[in-house]
């Protein structure tokens, strides 16, 4: 279990994480979603005791990371796959980690086998591809057979085959009753990987819930075609709906369900040619949730703006 209690982290004037509180439960994969720069890595570093919260605290299994007797046996983490000495072999890298937490060397060969790196175990990690590096990072995370696992953007650089492998691996770790906390800035990836979602933007909690809850509550619109558009619009406005977009005889209403529109039309004798709920995809839900918190949003280049 991972708990954040009003954690805030400032770097000088930058507030990377602000008053963040949540609990990550065991047994499911929890996705940690947010645009780039929203504070995901910072949060993970606070959990691992690498960065000290400016205020509040982060706990693993009810303890501060620093107080864990054998951290690697309780918590495994992959923060940055390239964060290892490039000249050291994969096996020696893992052996050094194992020795510090009194994990037998036989376990090193075991995890190299699990991630499929046994053939290159004695090769320098610096020569590994991004995907091999991620696998080595994952090997390091599971080395101590920990009950809590954190992965920061683990699918970056993996090919589709590797992504599927990682996804299934996370599911199996969670199925074994472990706490699996995975960050990503890609909603589409999280939709397939996670059961639970914690969404942050600009260092603040935006939403916390299951994937289906978050899609359901996203405000979808309803597309309507009718010869009596104006009459219908007045009726819908009276019910609290609003016009999302309008072209010719088609109109999209927001803040109202298709059922409400259908009943309202029947009551007033308005003919409907089409009544289609526009289902928000998870991606759209995410965009909507984080729209106000994206740090760097792309600006279209206007003509004559050749910077």
């Amino acid at each position, binding site marked *: 279990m991972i708990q954040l209690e009003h954690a805030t982290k400032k770097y000088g004037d930058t507030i990377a994480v602000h008053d963040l509180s949540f609990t990550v439960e065991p047994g499911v994969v929890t996705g940690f979603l947010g645009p780039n720069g929203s504070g995901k890595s910072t949060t993970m570093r606070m959990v691992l005791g690498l960065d000290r919260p400016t205020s509040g605290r982060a706990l693993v299994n009810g303890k501060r990371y620093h107080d864990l007797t054998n951290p690697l046996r309780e918590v495994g983490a992959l923060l940055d796959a390239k964060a290892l000495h490039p000249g*050291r072999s994969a096996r*020696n890298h893992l052996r*050094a980690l194992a020795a510090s937490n009194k994990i037998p060397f036989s376990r090193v060969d075991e995890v190299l086998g699990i991630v499929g790196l046994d053939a290159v175990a004695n090769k320098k990690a610096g020569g590994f591809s991004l995907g091999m590096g991620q696998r080595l990072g994952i090997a390091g995370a599971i080395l101590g057979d920990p009950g809590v696992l954190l992965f920061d953007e683990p699918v970056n650089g993996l090919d589709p085959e590797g992504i599927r492998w990682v996804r299934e691996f996370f599911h199996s770790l969670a199925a074994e009753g472990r706490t699996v906390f995975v960050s990503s800035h890609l909603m589409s990836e999280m939709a397939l990987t996670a059961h639970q979602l914690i969404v942050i933007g600009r260092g603040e909690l935006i939403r916390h819930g299951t994937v289906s809850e978050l899609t359901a509550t996203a405000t979808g619109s309803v597309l309507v075609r009718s010869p009596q558009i104006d009459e219908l619009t007045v009726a819908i406005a009276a019910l609290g709906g609003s016009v999302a977009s309008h072209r010719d005889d088609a109109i999209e209403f927001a803040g109202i369900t298709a059922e409400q529109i259908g009943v309202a039309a029947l009551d007033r004798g308005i003919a409907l040619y089409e009544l289609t709920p526009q289902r928000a995809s998870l991606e759209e839900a995410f965009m909507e949730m984080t729209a106000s918190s994206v740090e760097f949003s792309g600006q279209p280049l206007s003509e004559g703006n050749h910077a």
Partner: protein
Amino acid sequence: MSNHPTPLSIVRSEWIKFRTVRSTVWGVLTLIALTVGFGALISFASAGHYSQRDIEKLSFDPVLRSLSGLFFAQLVVGVIGALAITSEYGSGAIRSTLAAVPRRIELILAKASVLKITIFVIGEAVSFGAFSIGQMIFASTKVPLADRVFPELTHVPSASLGTPGVFLAVFLGGVALTLLALLGFFLGLIMRSTAASISVYVVSLLVLPILTIFLPSNWRNDISKFLPTNLFQGMIATHHSTDAFSPWMATGTLTFYVLVIGAIGLALFSRRDA
């Protein structure tokens, strides 16, 4: 046996890291080559020139000559020491290290122990090795009859470890390398960058002595005996000038530097974000 991590398991882990990177292996080979190789070369050259000038004969110090390779080794051990920590910062490996060992003071003490023990063992080996090779060269070089100051002086004078002060000087050669390696290590801990910490180390060893030239002469000696290189020279000297510290004073002063820089490094390291 408990599963509680002990300082020993951290030392084991750090030892694996230390010996499994090429920079350490190369550093140690360079250290051996410079100390023993240069020591032999300079001993050989000075033995050959011994007979030529009387002034040479009077000031001839067989201990210092044989240990002259240690002056190059000073630079190498500082670099080995700095790299032991800065390479982890350079690659980002410090984060996986700290995730495995969050008790930061214990981690640094373990790293320092591995460095200290390795450099001490190798430092003593090269110091005594260079001394022995140098003395062998001197003792086997004949002085021509015409050049002999005393008739019984048939060979270039050599020193023996039994002569008072000699064993200490050679032993302190290895100790000095160990202290300088720790100095480089703690500078690296403070600075976190390989380039920055090696620069500061080299400046304090090579550039500061040059700068003292610009000091008023009555200050120069008072200040220059505190410089690391002069402390190092004081540690391996068998003939003592009043301008320099005695071997024990020099050892104490250099140790004091290491402790101060080490305390600053540890204080910063235990507070800083990784």
